[in-house]
């Protein structure tokens, strides 16, 4: 699946595309952008909702949509060394 991500322009928060014009701080809300990915990115960046958005490869897992690369999983859930700051500690970040 194609997951769209970027940072909220004002706050810098990591956000995930959740369909239409919606962006969420929770990876679980993300939806597959499929072939539309690039077009959606252009549209959303122009609308200034998201800063430097890009596409990441992911897959559906028991725990919801999950990026394939560890870097994106760390972005999604927070630093592995500060689980007190993590967004969702129940998901193992390092391996999927």
């Amino acid at each position, binding site marked *: 699946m194609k997951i769209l991500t970027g*940072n909220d*322009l*004002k*706050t*810098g*928060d*990591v956000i995930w595309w959740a369909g239409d014009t919606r962006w969420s701080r929770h990876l679980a809300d993300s939806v597959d952008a499929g072939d539309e990915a690039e077009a959606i990115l252009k549209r959303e960046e122009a609308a*200034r909702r998201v*800063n*430097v958005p890009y596409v990441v490869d992911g897959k559906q897992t028991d725990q919801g949509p999950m990026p*394939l*690369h*560890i*870097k994106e999983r*760390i*972005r999604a859930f*927070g*630093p*592995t*060394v*500060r689980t007190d*700051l993590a967004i969702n500690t129940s998901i193992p970040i390092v391996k999927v």
Partner: protein
Amino acid sequence: MYQYDQYDQAMVDARVAEFRDQVRRRLDGSLPEEEFRHLRLKNGLYLQLHAYMLRVAIPYGTLNSKQMHMLAHIARKYDKGYGHFTTRQNIQYNWIKLEDAPDILAELATVEMHAIQTSGNCIRNISSDQFAGAAADEIADPRPWAELLRQWSTFHPEFQLLPRKFKIAVIASPSDRAAMRLHDIGIELVKNDAGVLGAKFFAGGGMGRTPMIAPMIREWVPAEELISYAEACLRVYNRHGRRDNKYKARIKILVHEIGADEYRRQVEEEFAHMKTLGLDPPAAELERISAFFRDPPFEQGLSDDIDRSDPDFAVWVDQNTHPHRVPGYTSLTISLKPAGGIPGDATAEQIDLMAELARDYAFDELRVTHAQNIVLAHVRKADLYAIWQKLDDAGLATANLDLIGDMIACPGLDYCSLANARSIPVAQKISERFADTGRQRELGELKLKISGCINACGHHHAGHIGILGVDKKGLENYQLLLGGSGAEDVSLARIVGPGFDEDGIVNAVETVTNVYLGAREPGERFVDTYRRIGMQPFKEALYG
């Protein structure tokens, strides 16, 4: 400590106003990210893995308690209650909101601080010896010269768009505590036979993708011409440094490609020209700057005796203090490397406490070290026990300076968008494995340095033991390097062999320390034994 005059303050205030307007325009859409990016970077604002990251400049690592309290305040009000002290003697905040950045810079400006030139292709924060003005072995105080270089390099119109970033270090003692020769320019203040102060210049050092030790470019530059000579070094680089290839753009590549002799020849030519321009500051200006760095009112005739009846305290004193040139005083290093902790991180409460200790016991001054610790440079030995008790209560009394637990680690993949692998968990596991202070002391001085990618912010090339995180087909992998040093015995570490996974690298570190323990001769540090016996015994133990 240096204090801003009206020009310094006006410049910083104007920059805050300018950046506030730039942020406003970014948020209202009139400035696209492509244009805004280099403006925010010029103000130390990166976009990192989780949010914006702000790097605040701490000139040559020196700050007062008011400034340190401000750093705690920013951690508390605008971040998540902590900050990360870096190998450039600066501090970084990991969770900054763009909309808050102008207010943060405005608050910093009220205590003579900023984030100018902490990023971008310009001259970065000048680094120096954390024991400057205190060390028993220094021949002069490097801080006035570091301050002069700071003023010269800040907003220098010719050097705002260099081929790449540029790092300068100034030291003034035979012991190099600032990794001076691994800088783009390293300056060592020296005295000639007549006792006159001058500077030895090294150029073309650096770590990163292509590590190089800076060759000496000039053995003696008269101190009063130091700025002209630095300007000449920069001009030659600015003219010929490669702008076509980011990876070949640092001065080290230029000096390597044309050779130190040719680089020197061109610098001499430029220097002869620079001297006609009257660029160096008049003696009165040097005197004005130097006056800020006069000795604090040291008490005379203090005893050097310390009550060592508390054994934990005695170990900490032995490990974390450094000889001071005034009897009865010492320079104290507060380790930010507790076992299992995150190297260089401190909470707002810890930052406040260190500020209070500086105010109460250390003439209101603190230093950040390139090894990510905090120094109180002038402390009465008689006050050490009281300080130790307060540090201990706050989890800041780890007795491991220069031991394996006192490792450098960059933020790595937990925070950094350029990373290939995480550094911090590796640091934590190693420091837990070697948590026993007695075991660490048995190993003796051992500089372990970890970077999460080839950019080498964690100085892995300069580690007695270095660790480099790499991406191996999407998985984190760690290469082990041995034999580096950033000190006066400078050398570059070499890769031992195939990399390891996270647990494997921790075991590998233990294995090489065991080889050392088995092979060392009396008085040898890890790196000495390595230099004597070579790589092979370590390789055999690791790979069979």
